[in-house]
């Protein structure tokens, strides 16, 4: 799992890595605390979930993020569009 493992281990155990900064791991632990089931921070590690999830579930957060578009201006939508697509691509790819 490479670097991801180190940061996730900080999040899970409170261990502080001796060879890298600690804040990313601390942020991971906050994200895990807020949403224990979220795979947003785990997907970059290259692993996959044991259970099968439906595409609808995977893209639900992106869809909920996209709903405020309805009240956004055209310019804001131009910005929000690529952000949502980028997030979707990241979630789909499980890339680093």
């Amino acid at each position, binding site marked *: 799992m490479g670097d991801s*493992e180190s940061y996730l281990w900080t999040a899970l155990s409170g261990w502080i890595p001796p060879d*890298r900064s600690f804040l*990313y791991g601390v942020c991971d632990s906050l994200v895990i605390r807020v949403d224990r089931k979220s795979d947003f921070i785990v997907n970059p590690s290259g*692993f*996959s979930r044991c259970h099968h999830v439906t595409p609808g579930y995977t893209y639900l957060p992106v869809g909920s993020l996209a709903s405020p578009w309805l009240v956004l201006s055209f310019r804001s939508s131009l910005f929000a569009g690529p952000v949502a697509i980028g997030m979707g691509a990241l979630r789909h790819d499980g890339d680093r």
Partner: protein
Amino acid sequence: MTETVSLFFYALVLIFSFLYLKQRCLWQLAIVQILSLVVISFRMSYLLVVQVSAFVLPLIAFLPELRVAFWKHPSTVSKAFAIKWVGLHLSFSILLMFVLLQGYRQLNGKLAGREPAFLHNSGLIVLTTWAPVLKPTDSPDPRLSELIAKGDQFRLNDLWSRDGQLYSPRGLVRRWKQIEPNAAISDQVAKQAALNALLHRPMDVVTLGVKTFLHYWNFRHIRRQAKVELRRAVSNWPKKRTWAVATHFNLSPPLPNEVKKYTLLQRYFLRSQPYSYVVLLSPFACVGLIFFVSKGYVSLLFLHSWILFGTVTILSKNVSLRYLQPMSLLMILIFAVLVKAVIDRRSRSTSQAAP
């Protein structure tokens, strides 16, 4: 990962640095320092940039006044004025940096349950980075001297086994830790040995950096390294800690056929290799720029790009496209200034040619 998050905050550091150069307000300097702290909290490779900037940023901001006071029209009044304002901003910047960085060291030490430090392995990291130039006389501890003297047994002089010297069970660090199990002492001795090597043979250390830079031009190696980094996600499976993390998140290793596939962004990453050479060479473009554009922001870009270039060459054990990420933003800014300089020059020559 951390590269991306820290790059965002680094962009904010640059924005407020440019604002400070323009308006010279102390609150902007304070924001630069606070954001710099956030940057190093995510990625320690920015530490040198942050420390040097704290000293140099106020000097760049007041360079026009300093020029007038000490070179163009030296007078007691102008000198007193320049010294007063530069002194105020410089002392504020250095003091704030000192307080914030000490705070970080204290917090890191407290969280790790150890002594205050930026990183608790920094001495060992630098020692292995400069391992090929180490000599037994560099070490203040005779036990480490003896280990360095036996370096041939574990390829201490090999430029490309430096990563292994830090992480491998047969590397320098593991051997040294077996001799000196106290983490604080082993790191302190390692740091002192590395500093002695730098003080006694600085050119050898610079040569190491040059060799690292030249290795970026081994295209095959760079591509292979990029693939290794993408595959690292699965190559270490299963390790004890990996199991613990994976079990917590209910994860399983990817299937063999999934491992062979590259995702969209991974393919993009691999194909962007030629672009990264533009990033790598951007500090050299900045050298030319500093002679043609006498603006404070160019000096700042020059400083940052060369420090980061030094970090990825002299202070790196390996070559990787990932390491160039902080320089990518500077490259865009350097080329923006370059284009602006060309346009300004053309418009000036056009207006002069017009009757």
